[in-house]
């Protein structure tokens, strides 16, 4: 990109100090994924699969691994990933059951959730494809420069009086909008200052509550969570517990209330014996490692427990 700062007097000849874009020219292209659908699609295409239920099962573990690796994403992003993760886990666990006819409401809800996920994936893929078309057009168009040249002097005198056409307030508004700091693309630094929350601690707390009450909604489980990070940690803790086969999820409608059922042992020791991985996310340096895809391969293998 041609960049000349305002203080750089290059090109002081005929065209004088023609320079550059504003600060927003320096947008960062993150290697991160643009959300859960983006990640799912790339995993599926990485394995050269089509979008089918089987392919969803195949990439579930990898997906979860990414969600874990992305613990330093901003919180909203993480929660949107978790939504999809829970559906994937539901689907995967359902497949472990003997295949058969749709028996109850629960199966039906799961099928709906699956169809919804397929539909949203396909839709997202369509928009991603047209986004590529737009990008192609934008970059082609940027190579053509329009003629924007003032009127020849000989005609300038004929110009009618200028009509500014807007009031003083609107004029000031225009200036203000132009001078307004341009938002950089959402590189959120929020998480850097977020206090670390231990997933292991949260898992213990969650497991203990569930063991006592049997079933709780996710909402209730998080009712006393002081912040979003803690809610996310509790969700991750649930994924861990799910992996340990001590909890099950029920969700009647897509995006509806998620209830969590304790399926582990009844005594208190069942909780203390649990193996809960701590998440690297805690006091990590900012900005997740840029290349999460290839490096996670090895981790995935170990995680085939789900």
């Amino acid at each position: 990109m041609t960049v000349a700062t305002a203080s750089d007097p290059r090109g002081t000849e005929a065209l004088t100090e023609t320079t550059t874009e504003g600060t927003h020219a320096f947008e960062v292209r993150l290697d991160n994924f643009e959300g859960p659908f983006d990640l799912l699609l790339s995993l599926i295409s990485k394995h050269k699969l089509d979008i089918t239920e089987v392919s969803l099962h195949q990439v579930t573990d990898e997906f979860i691994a990414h969600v874990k690796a992305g613990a330093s994403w901003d919180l909203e992003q993480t929660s949107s990933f978790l939504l999809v993760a829970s559906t994937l886990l539901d689907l995967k666990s359902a497949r472990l059951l003997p295949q058969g006819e749709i028996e109850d409401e629960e199966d039906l809800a799961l099928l709906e959730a699956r169809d919804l996920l397929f539909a949203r994936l396909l839709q997202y893929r369509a928009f991603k494809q047209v986004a590529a078309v737009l990008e192609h057009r934008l970059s082609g168009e940027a190579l053509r420069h329009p003629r924007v040249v003032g009127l020849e002097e000989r005609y300038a005198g004929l110009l009618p009086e200028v009509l500014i056409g807007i009031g003083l307030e609107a004029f000031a508004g225009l200036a203000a909008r132009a001078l307004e700091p341009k938002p950089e693309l959402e590189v959120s630094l929020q998480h850097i200052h977020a206090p670390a929350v231990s997933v292991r601690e949260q898992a213990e707390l969650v497991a203990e509550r569930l063991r006592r009450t049997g079933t709780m909604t996710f909402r209730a489980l998080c009712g006393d969570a002081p912040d979003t990070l803690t809610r996310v940690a509790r969700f991750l803790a649930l994924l861990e517990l799910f992996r340990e086969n001590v909890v099950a999820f029920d969700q009647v409608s897509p995006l509806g209330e998620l209830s969590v059922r304790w399926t582990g042992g009844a005594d208190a020791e069942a909780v203390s014996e649990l193996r809960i991985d701590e998440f690297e996310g805690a006091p990590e340096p900012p900005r997740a490692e840029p290349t999460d895809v290839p490096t996670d391969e090895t981790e995935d293998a170990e995680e085939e427990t789900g």
Partner: protein
Amino acid sequence: MSEDVLEVAVAELRPSLEALLMIADQPLDETTLASAVGAPVPDVTTALTELAREYAEQGRGFELRNVAGGWRYYTREEFAPVVEAFVLDGQQARLTQAALETLAVVAYKQPVSRARVSAIRGVNVDGVMRTLLTRGLVEEAGEDHSTGAHLYRTTTYFLERIGVTSLDELPELAPYLPDLDDLDDLEDELGGSPAVVATGSTEDA
């Protein structure tokens, strides 16, 4: 030359248009041009198209294009390196993948709320939408009657930037989609769903 400028002789239609386009500092539409030269709009359209073809055939360094509803001279793509080295104004900043995807959804779904775009992309789009607004690629388009959410649409500047005259020239979305009807239903279902938008959304999980 006739003293009545509103009746340009046929032979002079093309050069008259060239003269006008040469002094214009913004794209001129066919109606404006037709009234300036006093010729019927279809004749003007034909003349403009022929001029554009002629420039291309003669391998000129410029081209005449109809973009975002108006005709305008542009430098030809091939000569971008020479032009850019000379004007030093850098290229337009590249849009991020997030911005491109958001722009694509707005372009095809307009007028559309942020919540709906978020639902389709699976991530919050607040920051990206603000960038697109600042860049003048997207603008506000009133509010949704039922939810009161702000709606967004693409701008004329967007058309200009992608080099088309109207939204109709965008590629069809349908071929990329398996079944559009299903999706419409889906969208109604998802419409304005706060699921992936609010920070507290984990509770919905």
